[in-house]
């Protein structure tokens, strides 16, 4: 049954048509998916390095149990790449009842799973709540690091490169790369970023590339060595100018964003960066940073992307996994997630598609450490740029 539905869906996606009849058939189909999901157990492999996120997932665990009779287990992981390798090994060994039913994923991990055909689906467009997703206003909900999702993963939340620090120590936060260089110059040794291939570090370097490249559209295409060599020199000029003013004169870098954040909390650095626009507010709420903490982005925009949930091809509980993915897209779950007092993860839904009641679920207002002025989100360069950026960075600054 699910296989025929998938085939059908593939055909409709391919033809670009979505006739009414089909959506009716799908509604009936969805009811039977929910039926079969009852009593199933979903092993949800999700990064567990943040307390507010774990608390939120725990809320989802209780909700899907009482609403759909689905047992959700949060498998705490430190890095989603581990799940990619685990599923790849399982599939290669012909194991059909895999260890993972749902995984929190995006970027290169998604690209690897898609390329190796390790994902179940397409399933996302058929989720009843997918109709709320802001696919026009937030194109990254369909393109993960410029890689089409093809319905193989369901959007969960939005991320955007964000900086934060103690407002009591920073009079004027740097609102562009050029201002950041001046800021580092004025505060020698008090600015740094994680060394690539930590993805926060790679993102910072990507931001430098975006801000120095003439034509951004070139980043949407597949990268080649020649193309990279042609467009990257201004970026390296910028980094060459920045590094001597960084922590340890740019000769050592923190290994991870976690370390960067800790160095900010300890006062060793003046600012840190994150992909979760509300992380600073979370840290204030968790009493890890002072109340005077501020967060900001570059005024011309910073790199933004979407994070997703996907179902491995050998998942045991595909029905229940879809039920959970659908619940994660519900206005209620999205509103709770976007609440700055819980996780504060921006929603993937389009406000215009929601009813008045659903809209009222989304609380507004600000808390200490939250973003005050939103800026445009710049889509990620195509994933093929990442290995070239990382290799070139290592060559320039690795020894």
């Amino acid at each position: 049954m699910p296989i025929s539905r998938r085939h059908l869906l593939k055909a409709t996606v391919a033809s670009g048509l979505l006739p009414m009849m089909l959506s009716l058939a799908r509604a009936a189909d969805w009811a039977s998916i929910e039926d079969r999901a009852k009593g199933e157990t979903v092993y949800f492999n999700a990064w567990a390095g943040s307390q507010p996120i774990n608390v939120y997932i725990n809320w989802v665990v209780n909700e899907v149990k009482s609403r759909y009779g689905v047992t959700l287990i949060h498998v705490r992981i430190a890095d989603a790449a581990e799940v990619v390798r685990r599923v790849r090994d399982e599939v290669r060994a012909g194991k059909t009842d895999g260890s993972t039913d749902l995984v929190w994923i995006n970027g290169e991990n998604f690209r690897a799973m898609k390329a190796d055909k390790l994902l179940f689906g397409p399933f996302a467009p058929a989720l009843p709540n997918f109709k709320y997703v802001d696919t026009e206003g937030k194109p990254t909900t369909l393109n993960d690091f410029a890689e089409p999702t093809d319905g193989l993963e369901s959007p969960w939340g939005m991320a955007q490169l964000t900086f934060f620090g103690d407002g009591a120590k920073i009079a004027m936060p740097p609102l562009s790369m050029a201002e950041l260089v001046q800021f580092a110059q004025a505060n020698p040794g008090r600015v740094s970023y994680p060394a690539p291939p930590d993805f926060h570090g790679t993102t910072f370097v990507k931001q430098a590339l975006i801000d120095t490249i003439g034509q951004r559209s070139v980043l949407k295409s597949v990268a080649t060595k020649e193309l990279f060599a042609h467009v990257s020199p201004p970026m390296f000029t910028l980094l060459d100018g920045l590094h001597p003013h960084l922590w340890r004169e740019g000769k050592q870098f923190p290994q991870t964003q976690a370390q960067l954040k800790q160095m900010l909390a300890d006062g060793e650095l003046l600012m840190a960066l994150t992909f979760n626009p509300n992380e600073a507010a979370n840290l204030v709420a968790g009493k890890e940073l002072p109340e005077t903490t501020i967060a900001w982005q570059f005024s011309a925009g910073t790199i933004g992307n979407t994070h997703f949930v996907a179902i491995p091809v050998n998942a045991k509980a595909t029905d229940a996994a879809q039920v959970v993915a659908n619940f994660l897209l519900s206005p209620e779950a999205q509103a709770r997630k976007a609440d700055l007092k819980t996780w504060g993860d921006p929603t993937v839904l389009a406000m215009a598609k929601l009813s008045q009641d659903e809209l009222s679920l989304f609380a507004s207002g600000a808390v200490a450490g939250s973003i005050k002025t939103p800026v445009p989100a710049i889509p990620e360069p195509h994933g093929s740029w990442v290995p070239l950026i990382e290799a070139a960075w290592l060559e320039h600054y690795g020894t």
Partner: protein
Amino acid sequence: MARTLRHVNHRLKALGGLLPLGAMWILPLSAGLAAALTSTFDAAVWAALFTHPQIFPALALSLTTGSASMILSTLLAFLIVAGLHRVTALQTWMGGFLAVPHLAFAVGFSFLIMPSGLLARVVGVFGDWAAPPQWITTQDPLGLSLIVALVLKEVPFVTWLTVGLMARRDVSQMLEAQSRIGHSLGHGAASLWLRVFIPQILPRMRWPLLIVWIYGASVVDMAIAIGPTQPPPLAVIIWSDLNSADQAINARGSVGAVFLTLVLAALAVLFAGLTRLLKPTFRSFLVSGPSVEAVPVRSARGLLMAIAAVYLIVIMLLAIMSFGSLWPFPDLWPSQFQVMAWEHLWDAPEPLFNSLTLALGSMITALFLAILWFEEVSARFDRYLLAAAVVALALPSLLIAEGQYLVFLKSGLNGTWWGVYLAHLSPVFAYVFIVLSGPYRAFDPRYRSVSLGLNTNNWRFWTAIKLPIMKPALTAAAAVGIGVSIAQFESTQLIASGRLSTLNLEAVTLSSGGNRQLLAMYSLLLMIIPFCAFLAASRTERRLQ
């Protein structure tokens, strides 16, 4: 006829020693290695490894940290033992320290020495500092802070080995007789140490010292916590390659691991050859003298106190940090407290339970397998198993775990306690076997002849005579085994596949976002559990005696 029978019997006995070991250790380990290393015969992958811009500086860093930490910890341990070997408490405390997992110690130690750490805050009180100094302590480019942390962690291990070796009745009687001769020939205590004791002790410690060296050269978790980054030690590059979702990069990691292991093996063989060549030079030193130099007891005591103080400060610091959420520089005390981290443990005690059962289970099995081998298999085969154990410890745990994961897929062991237990057994047995091999094989066979002559059976001889003599070595091996099992991360994560969790798994995943309170709490637990287990064990042992 009788002779053939005895021969067959002998063979059977050897087989009895080998079978469980083969099934529980050699088989999972070698199957894991075979599965993991298939990609290493691709020339293109080797080319990719050697074009990595950091490969040679990173290799140099690995070798210097490994060598410096091994040499320094051996020298310091000998100084401590020479000065204080009669202090019985020495053995107990050192045993407690050596059971502490490396990473947990490194986490606490870096809180102490980093530029915003306790040390800088104490100094800052006099300097009126508003911001942390721009000291280059942790992550120094030469890896000096990593070496210091390794030395602090290995000195207890080497001290323990030395004390354990010297405390054995057979060895101590021999050394006592020799020291009487030495004294009457006019040698002072220091001279006796250098010329008589060390030349006899050192060869017996060569395998454990080899793993101290290999540990320092291939350590990942400690290096990430306090080591340099540009370049990092080679093992860190390998680890990050093996962790990637990209198969080509995984392959480069596997090849990197084989490369590092081959370099270490080649250097070990080279070193062994060199010592043989240089023996005459050593001899000329040995026969020179006499010198009346005394052992520097005072510096030995000072050194021991300093090491113990660091451990105690680290434990206290971790305890404070596990409660203090906000602790800005230059405050000497956290400004905000919460019990969040400890509530976590209270809500989910299952990981603690799993850690304890896995540690005890794998440690007891490893002791059993090792003793079975020593009792049933001739000593001349030891070197093969020792070499296998060293290889098992030199290769990255992630690589072995990945291979074991593939093998366990077929037998349904993944996601079970038994699968994780077998995975833990790989490094635990390797350590236990290496730690035990010296003391166990040095057991004087005359004890056995005498007691059998007195008409005791084998079992009685073993429990009444051999066990008490071997007890210190066995307790040390147990302490190491527990510490190693408690500290396992990669193998646990992969093979547990989300079906069960351990303390260290919780520690790594929950602190992957950098929550220092959780990190401190788990590090503290990972430190004090083996520490207390060890102290309790040696207490009861003494009471029983």
